[in-house]
């Protein structure tokens, strides 16, 4: 690190200065330092100019003070004013013009190719588009800007590219950082270091990544310096403020309803079991009052008035005030880059400080990124080195509202009328885990304080994790002969995640653990198997990864018409994870000492004298290893600059799937063709200045590390609590036919651009088939397994991706629009065994032949019984209340399939306006053609005195209500089948279609006039999650978010360049 910084300074010092008046110049591309022949060099005030020769050089008569315009197609025109310092040899570097469709260079992680020469489906997200959003992470910036790339709200993957062609295997796209697959925590990447992102969508683009490419590939290219460019410094800072989360968003049973229910259940003797329990199970304040009234301890009238007071309290108000707040994320990033003739560099530092919306939670991230490239041996050898270092600290002191429960033993939810703090903000205790009479008595006998005040626990919490991650890169490229080069690249990555939770002696957890195993001896002394002091939980996870790649590149032009670009190589990868978690008891923070405990003996429980318990032993460790050896080749051939052919192949072998070598390898390949029609001599369609057609076909793959061809068992690292012997559990039954998953894809694409770039875009249509997909199917339990994982399924998808960019106004006001549209239809084409109707309605991820992979299935709803408000389904075509039969007789054929649970039509519309220095952009996005299951009340929880959904208040209560509501009446006793019929009925299958105003951004370019030395500055505002514009269903809920919706955020920032 030190050396890198030192080197930068040397470079800065080495800037030379000379002066002359007669000009010899050279025009080079700043990107790759290659000469640009045919560039135009014109002097201001003169109509004619000169053009550069084949090596990019030119001669011109000019004097100090003259201004030169240097331009080249596809590059930004550069204006150079000759000064005393301009020198005899003027080297002009032209930057590529990102707005030009033709010159986009996409990266596959193995090579960079001009998009024009590609046959596959690549989408490039450039730097300005990435910077449109404000976020701590990189990936979220891809939302709504890449057609076919969807952020899922449900399902097994966060991101899917062109649907999900897998069922249970890894469903996330492969993420490649520069050259290598990214291992580690993606949130550790500083988005300010990212230059561009290429998304590889079809087989021709992605199959070079073989068995890891089935879900598409996202290639992140970081910023680099370039040769012969003076130092550039860029600074970016912003503050992003998010609203306080709305805890009242999810409808919940009111305190009044809840208390009424408690009173009803109490009158039925429901609480009798808890009241007399040997475990001293807790009772809510209302039940305690009812008991007091029953036993005549408190007068009934007084109890009633106290209960009435409780009815008006809502604990969510307290949570909102004391557990939640506005989030504030700050981001600062600085980078320096530049280069000399034989070296270029990039160095950046970034600092993020996020204050989470959860009080006492937050993130701090510090990152350093440096890369350096040198040329030696007459530029034949290029050596590059790089380091990326990130350190972040995450505070997890607050686990949110749902973590505060009535009983951690049973997991029952907190009563809604609890109070967490008094009016002055002092923490209040709640009834928790045990009856207060029991804990009070215990404390009077000398046990530790046994009260639980959630707010005090929050203030007392000390839980954080620290991530240290770095990657070292080294690369060597040697140009053997013109066109042929060989390269070796190596990356070593290491990530260390250390978590630490100190449950100090004042924390409820520690006090409770100590108390529950305490014995009071006859002489009044205490025996405490679990020693006094704190409890310390620590965890370490170390990720080590090595990549080694050797590759030969052959790029050559034969004559005017033939261009070949090809690579072939071999790659070796080893990623291993070691993790260990351990706990210390009786911990003394001051001296970092702990005490030994007896994990074996069963101790009598103080809280439940009939039971015994051991001291919790939570220590564990894990060693995972993922190894691959891969061979790859890719070749592109370009004829007459308009006919393109590409082929690609890869063979992966890995250590997963058991040990049989035959099972381990799978060859995957692809081929593509392209035709730039507008390049033909006969092409005369003048309004369509650019037109390219392309097609590709091929295979990529996917892996499921949890599947194995053999009977596998997991060995329990500890030992049986009973026998103290090691034991093993079977994970997989034998499956000798297990194969890797494959994804077959056929892609057709058209790229076009009208004259003057008024409209440009891409239309693609594709077929995508998932073959040999590993799926879990229900299995007859008498075989010994209830579920079977194997190559049980295949899927068939097709879709359309469309991008349209238009230049609507190009005068003083510039207005451009970008429309993205994707259509995805993905169906399960074969699935060996049908699941049960119960499984289909209850879990939407069950594959069903002929339907979408994720579907919403329901029982046909027959309304409410007008007499009783009971829900009804259809049995033999007639409304019925025989719930047991309704559920048991339902088959996959009789249930109703509403449609896909994932949107089929997705896209966005972005409008960008600029006037003078002001730019404004806003984005609408839409998700159409899908369904979701709306949550509603289930009486099993209500009748278990655990509250429930807010629909309780809309339930059927008297005849006639059935016309207004579909929420069933309260039954006398709970009945699973009755609950299920309603919960999974068509009455609650809703259309999810909606349009959302996602964000808007406003920026003002301060230009270079504000402060000397600053070559550009920009201030910007960004607002996100602005709200729903339209949705198909009525009601207040956002179809994509049923429990918590994303909060609105507003950010302000400043960018500066020096």
């Amino acid at each position, binding site marked *: 690190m030190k050396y890198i910084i030192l080197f930068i300074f040397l470079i800065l010092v080495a800037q030379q200065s000379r002066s002359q008046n007669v000009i010899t110049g050279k025009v080079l591309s700043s990107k790759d330092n290659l000469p640009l022949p045919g560039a135009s060099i014109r002097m201001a005030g003169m109509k004619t100019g000169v053009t550069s020769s084949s090596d990019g050089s030119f001669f011109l008569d000019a004097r100090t003070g003259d201004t030169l315009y240097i331009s080249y197609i596809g590059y930004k025109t550069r204006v150079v004013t000759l000064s005393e310092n301009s020198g005899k040899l003027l080297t002009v570097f032209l930057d590529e013009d990102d707005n030009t469709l033709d010159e986009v260079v996409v990266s596959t992680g193995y090579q960079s190719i001009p998009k024009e020469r590609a046959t596959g489906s690549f989408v490039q997200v450039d730097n300005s588009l990435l910077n449109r959003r404000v976020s701590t992470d990189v990936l979220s910036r891809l939302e709504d800007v890449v057609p076919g790339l969807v952020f899922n709200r449900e399902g097994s993957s966060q991101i899917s590219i062109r649907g999900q062609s897998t069922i249970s295997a890894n469903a996330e796209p492969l993420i490649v950082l520069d050259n290598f697959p990214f291992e580690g925590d993606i949130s550790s990447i500083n988005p300010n270091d990212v230059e561009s992102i290429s998304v590889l969508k079809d087989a021709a683009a992605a199959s070079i990544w073989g068995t890891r490419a089935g879900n598409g590939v996202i290639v992140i290219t970081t910023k680099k310096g370039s040769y012969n460019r003076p130092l550039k410094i860029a600074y970016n800072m912003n503050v992003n403020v998010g609203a306080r989360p709305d805890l009242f968003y999810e409808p919940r049973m009111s305190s009044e309803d809840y208390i009424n229910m408690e009173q009803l259940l109490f009158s039925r003797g429901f609480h009798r*079991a808890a009241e007399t329990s040997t475990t001293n199970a807790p009772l809510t304040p209302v039940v305690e009052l009812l008991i007091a009234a029953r036993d005549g301890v408190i007068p009934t009238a007084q109890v009633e008035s106290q209960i009435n007071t409780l009815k008006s309290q809502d604990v969510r108000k307290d949570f909102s005030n004391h557990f939640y707040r506005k989030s504030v994320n700050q981001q600062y990033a600085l980078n320096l880059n530049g280069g000399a003739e034989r070296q270029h560099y990039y160095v950046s530092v970034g600092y993020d400080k996020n204050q989470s919306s959860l009080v006492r939670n937050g993130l701090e991230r510090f990152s350093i990124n440096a890369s350096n490239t040198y040329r030696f041996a007459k530029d034949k050898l290029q050596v590059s080195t790089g380091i990326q270092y990130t350190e972040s600290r995450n505070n997890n002191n607050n686990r949110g509202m749902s973590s505060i429960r009535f009983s951690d033993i049973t997991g029952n939810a907190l009563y809604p009328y609890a109070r967490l703090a008094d009016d002055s903000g002092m923490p209040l205790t709640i009834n928790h885990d045990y009856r207060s009479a029991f804990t009070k008595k215990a404390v009077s006998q000398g046990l530790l304080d046994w009260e639980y005040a959630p707010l005090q626990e929050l203030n007392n919490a000390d839980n954080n994790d620290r991530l240290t991650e770095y990657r070292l890169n080294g690369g060597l490229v040697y140009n053997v002969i013109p066109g042929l080069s060989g390269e070796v690249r190596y990356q070593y990555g290491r990530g260390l995640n250390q978590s630490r939770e100190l449950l100090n002696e004042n924390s409820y957890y520690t006090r409770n653990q100590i108390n529950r195993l305490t014995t009071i001896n006859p002489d009044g002394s205490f025996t405490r198997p679990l020693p006094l002091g704190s409890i310390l939980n620590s965890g370490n996870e170390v990720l080590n990864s090595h990549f080694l790649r050797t590759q030969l590149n052959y790029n050559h032009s034969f004559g005017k018409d033939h261009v070949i670009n090809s690579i072939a190589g071999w790659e070796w990868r080893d990623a291993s994870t070691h993790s260990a978690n351990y706990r210390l008891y009786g911990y003394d923070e001051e001296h970092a000492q702990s005490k030994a405990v007896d994990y074996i003996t069963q101790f009598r429980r103080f809280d439940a004298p009939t039971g015994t318990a051991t001291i919790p032993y939570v220590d564990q460790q894990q060693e*995972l290893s993922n190894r691959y050896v891969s061979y790859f080749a890719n070749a592109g051939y370009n004829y007459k600059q308009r006919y393109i052919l590409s082929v690609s192949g890869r063979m992966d072998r890995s250590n997963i799937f058991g040990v049989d070598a035959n099972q381990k390898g799978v060859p995957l390949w692809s081929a593509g063709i392209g035709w730039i029609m507008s390049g033909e001599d006969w092409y005369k369609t003048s309004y369509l200045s650019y037109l390219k057609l392309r097609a590709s076909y091929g295979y990529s793959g996917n892996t499921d590390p949890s599947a194995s061809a053999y*009977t*596998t068992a997991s060995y329990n690292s500890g030992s049986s609590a009973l*026998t103290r012997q090691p034991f093993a559990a079977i994970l997989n039954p034998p499956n000798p036919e297990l194969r890797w998953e494959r994804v077959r894809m056929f892609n057709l694409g058209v790229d076009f651009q009208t004259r003057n770039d008024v409209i440009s875009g891409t239309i693609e249509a594709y077929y995508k088939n998932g073959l040999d997909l590993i799926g879990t199917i229900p299995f007859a339990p008498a075989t*010994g397994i209830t579920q079977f994982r194997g190559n049980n399924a295949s899927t068939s998808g097709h879709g359309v991706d469309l991008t349209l960019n238009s230049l609507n106004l190009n005068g003083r006001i510039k207005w451009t629009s970008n429309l993205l549209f994707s259509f995805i239809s993905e169906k399960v084409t074969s699935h060996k065994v049908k699941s049960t109707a*119960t499984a289909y309605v209850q879990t939407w991820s069950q594959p069903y032949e002929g339907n979408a992979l994720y579907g919403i299935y329901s029982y046909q709803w027959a309304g409410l019984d007008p007499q009783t408000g009971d829900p009804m389904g259809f049995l033999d075509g007639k409304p019925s209340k025989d719930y047991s039969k309704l559920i048991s007789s339902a088959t996959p054929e009789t249930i109703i399939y509403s449609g896909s649970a994932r949107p089929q039509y997705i896209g966005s519309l972005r409008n960008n306006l600029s006037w003078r220095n002001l730019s404004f952009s806003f984005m609408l996005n839409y998700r159409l053609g899908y369904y979701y299951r709306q949550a509603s009340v289930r009486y099993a929880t209500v009748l278990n005195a655990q509250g429930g959904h807010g629909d309780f208040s809309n339930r059927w209560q008297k005849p006639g209500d059935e016309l207004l509501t579909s929420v069933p009446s309260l039954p006398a006793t709970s009945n699973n089948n009755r609950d299920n019929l309603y919960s999974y009925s068509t009455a609650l299958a809703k259309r999810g279609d909606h349009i959302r105003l996602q964000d808007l951004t406003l920026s003002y370019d301060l230009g270079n006039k504000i402060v000397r030395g600053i070559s550009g500055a920009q201030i910007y505002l960004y607002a996100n999650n602005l709200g729903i514009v339209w949705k198909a269903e009525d009601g207040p809920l956002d179809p994509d978010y049923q429990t918590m919706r994303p909060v609105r955020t507003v950010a302000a920032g400043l960018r500066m360049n020096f």
Partner: protein
Amino acid sequence: MKKIISIVLLSLVLTSCDKEFLEKKPNAALLVPQKPVELQALLDNDTRMNVTPPIGLIAADDYYTTPAGLQTLTLSEERNSYLWLKDVFENESVEDWNNPYIQVFYANVVLDRLNEIEDTGSEELQTIRGHALFCRAFAFYNLTQIFCKPYESAQANVVPGIPIKLSSNIHEKYTRGTLKLTYDQIVSDLKQAADLLPLQAKLKTRPSKAAALSLMARVFLTMENYEQAEKFADDALELQSTLIDYNTLTTTLTRPLPAVLPYGNEEVIYYAYFISYRFLFYTQNQTIVNPVIYSSFSANDLRKGVLFNDRGAGVVNFKSGFTGSSNVFSGLAVNELYLIRSECRARKGDIGGSLSDLNTLLLKRWKKGTFVALTAATSEAALKLVLQERRKELFGRGNRWEDLRRLNKDPRFAITLTRQVNSDTYTLPPNDNRYVFPIPLNEIRSSGISQNER
């Protein structure tokens, strides 16, 4: 150029190490069970292999629960089996069916692998084979008591049994076969196991030779083959016959009996316990001992304090018995052998032999010096005494459900069970179809085997 060539060469050299490189296990804790010690580890998975289905116990008359207790039961099958409803499982997947078959699967994985290993006749391999066979038989037997009709030799060739899975191949098709085939398999597995198992098992969670013989005695008793039952009880008692003298126990303790593991309980032959459903969970104080049984214990009968916790107001809870922990014992023990032999002897008219067994047992259960040896004039009187003591001694172990199914066939002992929940009365007459539980729907749907009438 030379460098490049050398790099290419180097990479080729490296690729030749592939095989070794790729042998590394993806997860260090993963194993393909091959070695004897690994097979033993599978069988030592006690939370899988040493648990039994409790649904029969819930449906039997050892316990009753209050309406409040009924409300708090978490699984619908607990409520429904308690009330003998027609629909028990409400279409849910059921551990009472799944877990015994998981035991069968584990046993088959072990047996299939043992068939591949060259049999050196080593004691270790023999013990593992015997262990697996025992577990398979125990699982099959427990299933028959819930999902098959009671055994009647005349009908056994017609009545459906349970699927008999004898290989770990999960794709192998199966049907229910007949009840006779099922019992034949159980007996043959146990016979083999008895030959293979050691006289002394290292742990009570592992079967010994006595365990196989004891289970055989129980199986033949259930089949009403009293001659064989007596023989195997006899054989087993030859190997293990120690009874705990309850005078050595402190009856006021929460768990008066010593924990079988790790401290040991000499009377236990094979350690097993019920899957901990809420109904049997030690905190469920609303699961109350049938007062008829509780009141049948005399004041000097130490079992009253050793087995039961009288909380007053009619609330009497079971103390979970021979496990000595909060788990409820459902395994094999010496006391059951004495009772089996005593019953068999009474049935064949050996009154003296029958009462001698009974008195041997009871002597250890009564306060020292208070027990008066039982006498009977007729073999029928002796049988009645045995059955009464059987019901008391084996309380809460699951035998009651099996006995109800067996004894209801005999008009002398047939009884109708009733439950009272608030104003509703539920009854279960002798030999009712509801003595057989329905096969869970997910099994029927996946394999298409036939359903029970209920």
